[in-house]
């Protein structure tokens, strides 16, 4: 099968793009039409949602050699590495470096690194750039300024430490709203907050040491991280449904002012504007739990497009992506979707709230830039463990022990 030409890989004058971004689809289509008008090359954006369906489609596309010219890969770095090693992803270095690197310098460094494999990596992928970033996101804490004021809190001074966060949550709760909401039925959201806390407590290197299997999850500093969730549980200010809420419901709860704080990404700017244009909110980093290391935020990484290395239209696809990420098109996407572009130089067009999101990206972390990643099965046990803490089912020590057990078991089983 791998030798034959796929259905989409014929030499037609068309670029097919598979993506999962429902909120950006219309804007993508408009840009596709514009490109067609300018060049005569037809561009088709095909939306495949939800993400589970998208992931399945891309996997099947790879198995049957039916991938389109451009597509996204949703999965951990190991999965991206598998796509690259199977020859499904075009290495972009020569394109990025041509014209004295004119295309390369267009992007924020961190955003471009989302699709980069360093010279030495655990996946044995040849060094290089394999993806084109479209936008960047950041996942900080978000708070409602009006509800803060109503609860007697300073709307211009969000919590900086975990204790302040707990106090703010309690006060918000006393004022008649839930203190905190987030879509913690979705594992990745719990995990991203926990890793922010872990970096703050033990530093990035020690956290990566855990992923490498050198530091156990039963380490006291990991238990301190899990205890932070115990404190939320004990203080009782979080939305009672927090562990069974998917993120969309959490966004609704925050946008409808039923909750004073949330943990959510910069894409929420667009979401909140649609749900409640009058929402007054601000952004802050996940409060400090430790004192030694800086507070981090998941971010400066986002949606990435990959070019199908086996497509006869790969050069056309690269040309399209060059055009697509040019400032003019990036500005159009920024205006229409309110996502922070991966293309530099548009900062003046950011709304004040987008500037707030962009300003917290200092010390940003993201698994796509980690040299080592945690196994998704461990992440699942991790997420479930924090859910257990949040419903009072298990203690932080029990959860730490279960995660470590899962990690050791998985090491034996393999993938």
């Amino acid at each position, binding site marked *: 099968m*791998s030798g034959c030409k796929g259905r989409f890989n014929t030499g037609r004058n068309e670029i097919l793009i598979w993506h999962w971004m429902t909120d950006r689809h219309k804007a993508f289509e408009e840009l596709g039409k514009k490109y067609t008008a300018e060049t005569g090359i037809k561009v088709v954006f095909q939306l495949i949602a939800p*993400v*589970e369906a998208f*992931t*399945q489609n891309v*996997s099947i596309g*790879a*198995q049957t050699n039916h991938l389109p010219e451009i597509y996204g890969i949703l*999965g951990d770095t*190991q*999965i991206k590495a*598998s*796509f690259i*090693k*199977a*020859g*499904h992803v075009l290495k972009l270095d020569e394109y990025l470096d041509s014209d004295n690197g004119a295309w390369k310098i267009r992007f924020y460094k961190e955003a471009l690194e989302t699709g980069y494999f360093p010279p030495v990596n655990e996946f044995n992928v040849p060094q290089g750039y394999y993806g084109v970033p479209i936008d960047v996101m950041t996942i900080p804490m978000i708070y409602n300024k009006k509800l803060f004021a109503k609860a007697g809190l300073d709307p211009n001074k969000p919590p900086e430490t975990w204790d302040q966060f707990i106090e703010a949550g309690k006060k918000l709760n006393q004022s008649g709203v*839930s203190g905190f909401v987030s879509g913690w*039925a*979705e594992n990745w959201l719990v995990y991203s907050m926990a890793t922010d806390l872990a970096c703050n407590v033990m530093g990035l290197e020690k956290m990566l040491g855990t992923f490498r299997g050198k530091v156990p999850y039963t380490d006291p500093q990991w238990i301190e991280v899990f205890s932070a969730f115990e404190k939320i549980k004990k203080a009782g200010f979080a*939305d*009672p*449904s*927090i*562990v*069974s809420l*998917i993120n969309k*419901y959490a966004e609704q*709860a925050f946008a409808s002012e*039923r909750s004073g704080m949330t943990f959510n990404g910069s894409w929420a700017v667009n979401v909140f504007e649609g749900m409640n244009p009058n929402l007054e909110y601000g952004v802050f980093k996940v409060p400090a739990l430790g004192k030694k290391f800086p507070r981090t935020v998941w971010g400066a990484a986002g949606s990435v497009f990959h070019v199908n290395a086996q497509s006869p239209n790969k050069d056309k696809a690269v040309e399209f992506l060059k055009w697509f990420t040019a400032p003019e098109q990036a500005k159009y996407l920024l205006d229409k979707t309110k996502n922070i572009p991966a293309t530099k130089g548009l900062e003046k067009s950011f709304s004040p709230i987008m500037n707030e999101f962009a300003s917290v990206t200092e010390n940003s972390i993201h698994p796509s830039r980690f040299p080592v990643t945690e196994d*998704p*099965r461990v992440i*699942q046990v991790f997420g*479930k*463990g924090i*859910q*257990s803490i*949040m*419903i009072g*089912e*298990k203690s932080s020590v029990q959860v730490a022990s279960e995660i470590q057990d899962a990690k050791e*078991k998985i090491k034996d*089983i*393999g*993938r």
Partner: protein
Amino acid sequence: MNSIANGILTRLARFRASVLSNYLFILPALAMFLTFNVYPFYKVLNMSFFHWNGIDLGGGTFAGLANYKEALLEDHTWWYSIRNAAIITVLALTLQNFLALVLAWIVDRGIKGGQFYRSVFFLPPILSGVVVGLVWNWIFRGDAGLLNNVLDKLGMSGWAHAWFSDIRTALLSLAVVHMWKGFGWGFMILLAGLQGIPRELYEAARVDGANEFGIFWKITVPLMIPVFALVSVLTILGTMQLYDLVVVTTMGGPSGHTEVPMFTIIRELTENHRFGYAASLGVVFGFILVFVSLIQLQLAKRVKAE
């Protein structure tokens, strides 16, 4: 002698032609069956003996029975998801089908507005699982949920809580949503079964002095056994394969307490990229369903014979 031999040969030729034409007629159906049933099953079975992330060239590495060993002996999450589905299935087999039978029996008695009730009861099954999940999520929400508001108005605020987030009620709440969505199927099939029973039997029983309970127990129930068997098998198969409602309401949470087999299998595929292991779970699950359905049918046969 020659004419006899010719006759035999002619008949044989005709027989062969007729057999051949018979096979030709079933060939399209056979080809479809082989392509869309046998081959995919073979591929899944084959894949279940490999470690494969679905992307690596060459179809992965041979794993022997390792995936089955993990599925059958080591994966507690998997068996917990089967246990969850089994609980919902037992509830659906009893409560859901009892409700469906009662309603079908009432409508069968020619009550006023029977056609209206038929349409109303059949509405939930034809609604999308996602829509049903969204509505019930709003009903069962912990803060602004409809159910909690109603309980509050009734002075029972002590009962109010986050139904999907409490491990004591999460699975039961999911079962309620599933049964609400599914009882209409049972209702329609049972109603069709009830309407297929000759009315003369009821009239004769009444003439003989039988009361309503006696008629139901001695006539309706025995004649409905095949229909009960059908509804039970469909309920088991439908409930054990529950997926969409879980994704929209709980995502398997809190902490895996509402995970069901399909959710686990799809997570292995899409999140963990373990195609071989997911295939082995699918095979194990398929055998469980076939086994349970066979037992169900055997029980129905025995009850009918008695």
